[in-house]
């Protein structure tokens, strides 16, 4: 059974029919990338999974369990972490409080402490800033904090929305290295990226989304070599 399945989902974003019968499935341990142009419905797909913009038709299943209409706050507790577009860290709270909130649903103090330590090892920059206010961090640091905060819920699947957006190239490489590390430690990842070449390179499989529909899917090798994909998304 797939870890996460989206089955013929229709989602409206306001009056826009943003997803039209989208289906995708992710196996445990994979990195899957969703590519598509602006407005294709990538962010809506993630918001549908995490419950922020629930589907009006179709199903979202986590290990076979229907979670389509559960409140977002409950879905996190089941093991889906969502690092939203634009980082969305809590600007007026300390870096530490941001991390503490990431573990809001958890009760295992000892485990939370261990995970915080682990996350800070993954992101040494975040450790240096631990007592600063979130809003004073640089863009790259905020992105790292957002991912670190997402990991604090101990997710089985981590949804990453444009983690490299607006970052300097050297930071982009760092972020992708960390994504690989997180995956190697056992977290399944669904990734959205403008930087499609890079994203596909670290992924196992990919889906191409066009105006609310999946138009292509397959192993990354196939997508990277497909002329359509190259022309539209890889800038080749």
């Amino acid at each position, binding site marked *: 059974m797939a870890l996460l399945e989206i089955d013929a989902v229709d989602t409206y974003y306001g009056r826009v029919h943003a997803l039209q019968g989208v289906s995708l499935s992710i196996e445990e341990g994979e990195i899957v990338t969703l590519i598509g142009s602006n407005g294709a419905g990538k962010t809506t797909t993630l918001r549908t999974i995490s419950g922020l913009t629930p589907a009006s038709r179709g199903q979202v299943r986590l290990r076979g369990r229907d979670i389509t209409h559960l409140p977002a706050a409950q879905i*996190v507790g089941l093991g889906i972490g969502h690092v939203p577009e634009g980082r*969305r860290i*809590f600007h*007026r*709270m300390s870096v530490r409080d941001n991390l503490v*909130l990431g573990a809001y649903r958890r009760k295992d103090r000892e485990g939370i402490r261990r995970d915080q330590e682990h996350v800070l090892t993954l992101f040494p920059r975040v450790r240096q800033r631990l007592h600063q206010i979130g809003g004073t961090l640089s863009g790259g640091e905020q992105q790292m904090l957002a991912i670190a905060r997402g990991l604090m819920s101990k997710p089985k699947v981590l949804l990453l929305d444009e983690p490299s957006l607006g970052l300097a190239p050297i930071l982009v490489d760092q972020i992708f290295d960390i994504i690989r590390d997180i995956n190697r430690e056992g977290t399944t990842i669904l990734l959205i990226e403008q930087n499609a070449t890079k994203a596909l390179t670290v992924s196992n499989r990919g889906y191409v989304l066009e105006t609310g529909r999946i138009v292509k899917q397959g192993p990354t090798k196939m997508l990277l070599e497909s002329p359509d994909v190259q022309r539209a998304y890889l800038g080749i």
Partner: protein
Amino acid sequence: MAILLVLFIPRAASDPSFFVQILVYGLANGAIYALIALGYTMVYGIIELINFAHGDVFTLGAFVSLPLIGAFGLTEGQSASLGLYAALLVIAIIVMLILGGVNVLIERIAYRPLRHAPRLAPLITAVGMSFILEGAMYIWRGANNIHYPDFLPAGRISLGGSASIGYKDLIVIALAVVFVVVLTTFINRSKLGKAMRATAQDQDAAQLMGIDINRTIAATFFIGAILAGAGGIIFGLYFNTVRFDLGFQAGLFAFTAAVFGGIGNIQGAAIGGLFIGLVKAYSDGYFTSQLTDVWIFSILILVLVFRPTGLLGMRVPEK
């Protein structure tokens, strides 16, 4: 403003004990405004609603405590004893719980359905809610001033000259300080407090952390009502008279205090409350009470025009 100060300073200097006396009165008054302003600022902070009904929840605190005082068999003039204060404490707790429930109910039926409506809709609903509460209290106890029993000790401590501070003043100020300190610690340290701040800053992100924002917002209304209820009882005990429309003016003053301090900011609301209390006291004492509203609402307008973020408004850059 400058002219006012020029008029004011020599008069203050010519009679320092009068100046100090008014300071005491202003601080005690301001402490009550501060308690109301906290509720305004918390609710605004979390859902950006100016809850105009909040001042009336404050009045309701005094109104609900009156029958309880009777039910507990407390009578005015009975000698101050531990039993009396224990009973008052129990009454205060009951009132705070009742008001908390009422305010959560108000949020549930009047504001939550409008959470995604244009901003003006909940604002107008809040004004309507204010009228409903005032109307209910008017029907309940009529339009006249109601005597509120005097239980606080009457002694005074001399401050030199003819100025003195009453035990009453000290108690009111001390209670307000305790509430502000407890509330600030709670908001900064507790899990619920952190959830409240997170919800205030970004509701989507808060949900992604696993925070139930409906419950968090309800908790904010509950705590706001606790403070307003405490404020209502303290007002009654201090001034010994209450009326159904008390919350209208007190609410607007407290709102001004919250804006002055930087709406959404807890410490700001407390400082703003004291400031408005002092402005009111000095205006009443040195000029005329008929102009007090003018001064206070001029402050509101000046702050809104020149420094909308208030004294301690949020200044952290948002990238």
